[in-house]
């Protein structure tokens, strides 16, 4: 499903060269739930964003479902992001001007799916019901709690039925109960066949994953 080879990402901070990624090789099979753990600044978020085509590596290659994403045009990589990948960020990333339902449906609008607006709105509502937000479909993000915002973001990531979900610290800032609810939701999504790659600093979440890898100083190392 995903194959990354020799990924290096470097930039200069004044005189000093910083290498968030320093020669990463990575393979992810379809249907895996991979947890990438590591300390802050270890390069795990950068790695996730390179996999998602949100930033380009300095050198190396990334293939997703057989496509070299670094060779794609802007339109092609945008289409890949909207149809194949669902993102869940550390912050909810919801547009404050839209309701929860509109935020979820926005993915379909951007993807330009052939289904009409009412069909998109219906699917968005179904997804919000699925993540337990039946009563909040028309609420703006300012009226949602931290856990509800995360669940809305997950619903948005699922809107275009992606085969891959990239989640960056989705449980950060959540209390233990809410964290568990969110992780159960991810497990459920994974059980339905969606590949999940999740970045977290919380090793306690390892039980939800099929594989755990550690990012250390820009390199991936297997865990136990």
């Amino acid at each position, binding site marked *: 499903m995903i194959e990354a080879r020799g990924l290096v990402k470097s930039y200069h901070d004044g005189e000093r060269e910083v290498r968030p990624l320093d020669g990463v090789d990575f393979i992810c099979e379809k249907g895996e739930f991979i947890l990438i753990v590591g300390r802050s600044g270890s390069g795990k978020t*950068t790695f996730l*964003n390179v996999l*998602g085509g*949100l*930033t*380009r590596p300095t050198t190396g290659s990334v293939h997703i479902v057989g496509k070299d994403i670094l060779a794609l045009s*802007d*339109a092609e990589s*945008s*289409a890949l*992001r*909207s*149809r194949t990948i669902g*993102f869940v*960020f550390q*912050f*909810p*990333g*919801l*547009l*404050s*001007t*839209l309701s929860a339902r*509109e935020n979820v449906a*926005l*993915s379909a*609008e*951007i*993807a330009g799916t052939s289904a009409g607006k009412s069909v998109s709105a219906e699917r968005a509502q179904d997804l919000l019901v699925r993540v337990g937000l039946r009563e909040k479909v028309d609420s703006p993000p300012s009226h949602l709690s931290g856990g509800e915002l995360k669940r809305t973001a997950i619903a*948005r990531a699922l809107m*275009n039925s992606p085969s891959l979900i990239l989640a960056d610290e989705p449980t950060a800032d959540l209390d233990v109960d809410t964290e568990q609810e969110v992780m159960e939701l991810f497990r459920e999504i994974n059980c339905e066949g969606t590949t999940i790659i999740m970045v977290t600093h919380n090793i306690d979440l390892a039980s939800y994953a099929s594989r755990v890898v550690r990012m250390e100083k820009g390199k991936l190392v297997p865990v136990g």
Partner: protein
Amino acid sequence: MFGLIARSIIHRPVRNGALILAFAFIAASLFSGHYLLAGASDCVKSEIAKLGADIIVVPQDYTADSEAVLLRGEPSTFFFNNSVVPQIINVSGVEQVEPQIFIATLTASCCSLPVQLIAIDPTQDFTITPWLEANQLKPLGQDEIIVGNKIVAGVGSNLTFYGHTFRVVGKLDPTGTGLDTSIFLRTADAYTMADESKENAIKPLVLSRGVVSAVLVRVNDAAEVTNVSYRIVDRVPGTRVLTSSALVSTVSDQLAGITQILDLSALVATLISLPLIALISLMVVNERRREIGVLRALGATRTMIFRLIIWESVIIAAIGGILGIASSWIVLMLFQSYIAEVTRIPLSMPVVSSLVSISAITFIVTVAVGGIAALYPAVRSALMEPYEAIRSGEL
């Protein structure tokens, strides 16, 4: 996408309200200048058309007075010998002529009000007689007058000039020109009034037989108005000709100062606003970096982001443009008479085609300013790397 733009505009009411006002000011300045120019120009053309003449021949030394009578209705008395009439008839291309006599009334007790009297000969007239026929009125009889629209006297009432009393039998439609403050009477009655004025008026009216003030000329269909005008001036010494285009040009010259000021203020407003609007757009884009990053992560292409920023600015400019055009139109209509009085130009609402083209041009210019102002922020947003945008922005 438009739903997203609409929400974004509504979500920032103060800043977008200020931007809308800036665009409205640009549109109002542009629209007002060209409205005045077109209004005055259309008004003059309509007056000439109403007079039914292609050319008005006046004494050479009284060109300015003639224009003042026709354009602003400023009362004036001047004559030249009526021997010019047969000379004008003989000019090739002239189909019909109508001599008129202009008499200014007095601000004295012998006159009801100071206006311009225009004496016509009903047997030669092609100005008032067709209007009377169209309104199913009888030809002007003895001591009967037709008054301009702004003359405060109803049909059936009496008005006295130089001690001679006339009866109002008709009122012309408004023209926005000197015709509105003019009164038409028969030449025969004008002579009687002049004769009686020696005894009845404070200042007698000196009106010799054998004089005229202006000769209205109709050109035959095969002839060119300009060529006939040149021939009249060439063959009839001591005359000047007024044509529709010459009067429009006079009015345009009078208006030049005002339109230049309005155009200049639109230009200054644009030059000041453009970088300000661009700066505000850039600030908004910077504030929305994370939003842009999220949209890119959700699959929005660079083109989509570019369009989103441009459309938002264009829509704000369009709202401002419509507001500016509508508000200045209302103000210009409400204060039309006042503006005409202050600027001393004939003014009416421009014809629909002029109005549509002025509004369309103003709208297009305003929207273009909006688009240009957003160009740099839009390009910057489109080129932003999604990850950088997400990392550095706020939502």
